């Protein structure tokens, strides 16, 4: 649920900034912030929010360390 909320926020910022940029042309540093930070974060949130759960594990394998 928290990932879906994160996705909603990051996607909202991304879409809103695209619309504002088309209408009013945002400054370059805002464009860069969106492309370099918000866009990868949105991708990550999509993956986390809609990841398919693993199948049931049969038994717990004890961690013996590396």
């Amino acid at each position, binding site marked *: 649920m928290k990932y879906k909320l994160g996705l909603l926020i990051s996607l909202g910022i991304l879409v809103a*900034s*695209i619309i504002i*940029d*088309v209408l009013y*042309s*945002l400054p370059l540093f805002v*464009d*860069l912030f*969106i*492309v*370099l*930070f918000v*866009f*990868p*974060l949105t*991708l*990550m949130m*999509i*993956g*986390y929010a*809609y*990841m*398919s*759960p*693993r199948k049931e594990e049969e038994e717990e394998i004890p*961690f013996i360390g*590396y």
Partner: protein
Amino acid sequence: MHLVNILGHTIAAMIGGLLLIGLHRKIIARIQQRPGPPVWQELLHAFKFFFKETVTPRTASEPLYSGIVLLHMALMIGSLLVIVFGESLLIIIALFMIYKIVQHGAGLSSGSPYGRYAGVRSIFSIASEVPIFAAIAPIYALTGSLRVSDILSYQSLNGPLIVQLPLVAGALYILLLSKVRWSPFDIASSKDLVSGYKTEHYGVLRSILLFAEGIGLYVTLWLFLILFFGELSLILYILGGILLLVSLSFICAITPVLTPHHSVILQVGFGALMLLYALLIYWGVI
């Protein structure tokens, strides 16, 4: 340039880059007389990983383990934008240097021994940046600028740099070779370390690493074509990129991965030769 255009370039680089990696893999396989996976296999891998459950190892040090993936993507998009905006090559060099920190951080943050070894090797592989340091010196000596837009203007007036600086093209070709996967210089993610610094990154994190790697290949091929062939049409850029990749794949297919110290010696050697060449151009000897 609008945000939509920048995002369009980024998505094209993500998809195009992964198709190029797929082509690279296919060519290597065919040269080694194996059928190899289809060209779009890397793209399918990236989409498949995207929706897999992301598992974080117990030994991983969060938030570096996840954050480094975002940094990798940001660096590769940043280097793409440097070319799109025609900015200075120095920024690309800086971004490529920080990329080594990404490899180091990704490897060490996972806690896996394979990742740790790859993290240490990534420090050795900083030597792969020496040819680019050295290669830009003759370009500056000749064109008087390091801005991509100025270098393009110079070439439209004086012809392509590949004719004037063939040795520099050779040095930058070594850089390309060190950036592609399965190359003799690919010591940080060679198969003796499973997947190197990416071994423990799974699910969406692996997917973003793959997309970033695709952008990286797209950028390096495009940079080479821009620096040495100047302004070309889209078709010629695609054809040139594919031809360049075929030549790289051929070398990767027939050459084993070098040991870290051999890799460093070879790359530093090429760098030293290029610096000497730059000095000869600067003093007007050549």
